[in-house]
């Protein structure tokens, strides 16, 4: 086995349009295409050489398949080691390793056999091509700059366009498939992930990890409007008494239909038979009645989280209600050990008319009937796989599923046509330096441990509310009042005390409260320490390329406004993102709050963590600046340009 080392080079001075980060509007809008961002020629240098795309799958995943003669080859993106592993699926053997550097998150094989790899941390997509033999590493062609954190890719049905989502950059970029130059780009809502294109090529559906929505982007209309698909679920035949306590509310006949917010939508797949159905594994969340004080996270009225697989009609762009409805007899019982609360990847198996979903935490792959109107109810089989399954692909010729497990850095191969057979495991080579220190690795497993009743009685994991170490954008009912989930990644160092009230001096002591609120049985001391190490070391979103020109001037102006004595912002939010470590009354007490003072929160990454305040009362930064005037600093005296500048500055923190 040979390997090549190369680094994808950034583009000095050529910043990609960061419209995704700057757009104030939560809904999408087309922006001017940014020109030529590829750093070298991206076309194939050796056309026709090496493995070709294996099948009609046009969506990326951490595992992508290619075929060379009768061999099925899997390309696997390994975020920890910064490499792509090339594996012979039938032989169960690693053939080569391509050093990419950065954090390769997903792979797409194009029609002509090129291998596109999204590099989340570098805000690039690396373009490579296979050598004549898969025993040799992939050869780099070019790297394409994109808005912050490109994750998922998809090709249009005619293979003319490659679409790329940017998670932190909140964008969908459409690139010319040959040259990888930008055709257009649209701004999306928070945390987009997977993308699939409708069979007729007219719409792209984009999953969002938070916000109970999916975006449907019009690929044909000149301004590429974005429509929001509401992914909110509902508890069938049930209503929650509102406001005055369960019993009193019932007596007063004040029902409130318990809505469930769609969350954890990382992956999408398109069915083959029946055609035209888009599958979106997600979780339907009931964060509780925030006007009540409750005994934990959520009010325990119904199971806080229930898995679902939404089915979207690709013709109408609307979900089938049946796939968003939780039957009356279901919402109460959470089968902690079995629920797929952290779905991460999906692939369809046309031959069996089924779909396979990987579930983090319970380390399972579950097969569901692809014809079902509520696939979650139509489970066929499940397999135990190596720890941390984040990717899956189906080898239709060899009738196998290839599953990548990031935590174990291992591949599980499932024989699809053999009943009751255990997957075979295949370890890939690891770099010594990436054998992460023990605490971080243990902490990561614990953070994603769904179904672990030591952490939560009902099987919720830390990652349920802090997906990718960020936040679920939800406001939970708690004993102290409503609490909006804070983003963790990159926001904990030097930010003590913790919790909105600043009640805990260390992350460890905050976690004791967390386990109490989740009614977990408790973790060992060294496990809490491992969690602390993990949350403290989680990768922060890649920060934006420094702005230039008028944007830079505006940001500098915003900084001056922020630091001015009139606005007084910096008197509490010292130095922008830093904090004074003191709790203040900014007249933000909500009905169920037990305390009126709140710890000054860090404003680091504040542009990407809407909604705002401990109770999530402000949906946007603009709403916050207008609404909190006079209670938290002063802005009403500012001319409109200065408010714009202040907002622009906040988005750079």
């Amino acid at each position, binding site marked *: 086995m040979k390997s090549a080392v190369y680094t994808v080079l950034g583009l000095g001075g050529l910043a990609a349009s960061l419209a995704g980060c700057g757009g104030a509007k939560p809904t999408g809008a087309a922006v001017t295409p940014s020109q030529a961002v590829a750093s070298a020629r991206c076309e194939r240098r050796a056309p026709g050489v090496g493995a070709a795309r294996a099948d009609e799958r046009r969506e990326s995943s951490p595992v992508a398949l290619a075929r060379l003669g009768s061999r099925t080859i899997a390309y696997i993106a390994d975020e920890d080691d910064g490499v792509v592993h090339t594996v012979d699926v039938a032989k169960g053997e690693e053939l080569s390793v391509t050093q990419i550097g950065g954090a390769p998150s997903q792979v797409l094989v194009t029609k002509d056999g090129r291998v596109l790899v999204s590099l989340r941390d570098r805000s690039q997509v690396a373009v490579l091509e296979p050598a004549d033999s898969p025993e040799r590493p992939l050869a780099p062609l070019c790297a394409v700059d994109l808005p912050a954190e490109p994750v998922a890719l998809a090709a249009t049905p005619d293979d003319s366009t490659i679409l790329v989502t940017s998670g932190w950059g909140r964008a969908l970029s459409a690139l010319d498939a040959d040259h990888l130059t930008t055709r257009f780009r649209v701004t999306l809502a928070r945390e987009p992930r997977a993308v699939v294109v409708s069979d007729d090529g007219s719409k792209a559906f984009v999953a969002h990890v938070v916000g109970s929505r999916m975006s449907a982007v019009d690929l044909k209309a000149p301004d590429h409007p974005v429509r929001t698909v509401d992914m909110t679920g509902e508890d*069938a035949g049930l209503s929650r008494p509102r406001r005055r306590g369960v019993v009193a509310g019932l007596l007063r006949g004040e029902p409130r239909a318990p809505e469930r917010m769609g969350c954890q939508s990382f992956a999408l797949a398109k069915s083959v038979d029946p055609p035209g159905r888009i599958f979106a594994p997600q979780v339907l969340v009931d964060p509780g009645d925030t006007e009540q004080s409750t005994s934990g996270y959520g009010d325990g009225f119904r199971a806080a989280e229930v898995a679902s697989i939404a089915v979207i*009609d690709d013709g109408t762009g609307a979900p*089938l209600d049946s796939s968003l409805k939780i039957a009356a007899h279901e919402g109460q019982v959470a089968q902690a050990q079995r629920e797929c609360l952290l779905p991460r990847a999906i692939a369809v198996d046309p031959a069996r008319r089924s779909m396979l979903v990987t579930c983090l935490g319970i380390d399972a792959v579950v097969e569901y009937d692809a014809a079902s*109107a509520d696939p979650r109810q139509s489970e066929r*089989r499940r397999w135990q796989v190596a720890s941390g399954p984040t990717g899956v692909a189906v080898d239709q010729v060899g009738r196998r599923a290839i599953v990548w497990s990031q935590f174990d850095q291992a591949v599980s191969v499932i024989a699809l046509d053999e009943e009751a057979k255990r997957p075979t495991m295949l370890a890939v080579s690891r770099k010594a330096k990436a054998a992460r220190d023990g605490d971080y690795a243990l902490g990561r497993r614990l953070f994603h441990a769904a179904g672990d009743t030591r952490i939560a009685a009902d099987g919720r994991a830390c990652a349920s509310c802090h997906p990718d170490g960020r936040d679920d954008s939800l406001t939970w009912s708690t004993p102290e009042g409503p609490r909006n989930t804070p983003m963790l990644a990159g926001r904990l160092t030097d930010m003590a005390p913790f919790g909105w009230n600043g009640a805990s001096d260390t992350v460890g002591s905050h976690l004791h409260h967390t386990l109490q609120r989740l009614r977990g049985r408790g973790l060992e001391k060294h496990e809490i320490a491992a969690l602390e190490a993990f949350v403290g070391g989680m990768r922060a979103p890649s920060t934006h390329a420094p702005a230039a020109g008028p944007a830079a001037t505006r940001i500098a102006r915003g900084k001056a406004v922020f630091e001015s004595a009139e606005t007084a912002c910096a008197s509490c939010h010292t130095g922008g993102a830093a904090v004074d470590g003191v709790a203040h009354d900014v007249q933000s007490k909500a009905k169920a709050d037990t305390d009126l003072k709140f710890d000054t929160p860090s404003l680091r990454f504040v542009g990407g963590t809407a909604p705002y305040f401990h109770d999530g009362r402000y949906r946007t930064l603009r709403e916050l600046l207008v609404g909190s005037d006079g209670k938290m600093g002063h802005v009403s005296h500012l001319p409109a340009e200065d408010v714009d500048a202040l907002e622009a500055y906040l988005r750079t923190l």
Partner: protein
Amino acid sequence: MEVTSDAGDDACLAIAQPGRDAFRSTSAIFDRSEGVVPVRVETLRDAGGVATLTVLDLWVDPLTLGVARAGRVELPLARIADSALGAVVFGFRASDSVHLVVPASQSGQVQTSEGQLISTSCATLRIDLAAARGKAAVVTGSFMKQTPAVPATETEPAVAPVAVRFGLAATLSQTSRDPEPVLSVVLRPLDELPAPPRQSKR
């Protein structure tokens, strides 16, 4: 007054009256004051994989014990799903609806996503699914069934039947692109059977 069909254990009686629960049993109980009651007797025959459902509609007068025959049809059934341990789902389609016949023993209960219960204590569970574009039907639940007995062979001992709980999920849905409603039936054993005794190593 109790009415039992003489078609034996394979027959299921149901009172075909709105307002009555969709409860099926080997016998039905009437109140003498009810007047004449419509009764449907369904009998499933599964002869070597070719299954038919005989539907007999009767009028029963609880006062006089008079029984009048209103109609009889024999419906050929399609085999829709099979599961390990011998469970099977039969069914037939009628324009926009699908009707499932599930051989069960002892007891079964399924429910629609709206919470409507369909239960049985006779030989079959019957599920009717109707779908329109954008409005799917979903029924989920479980039932008990005996596994088939396996006679002894020269090398293996006989296996006695065991009651196993099976899970059933049936849906019917039609998206804008489906020319007709799409049926999904998933049937699988929910109980793990005790592993066969390992051959002792000497």
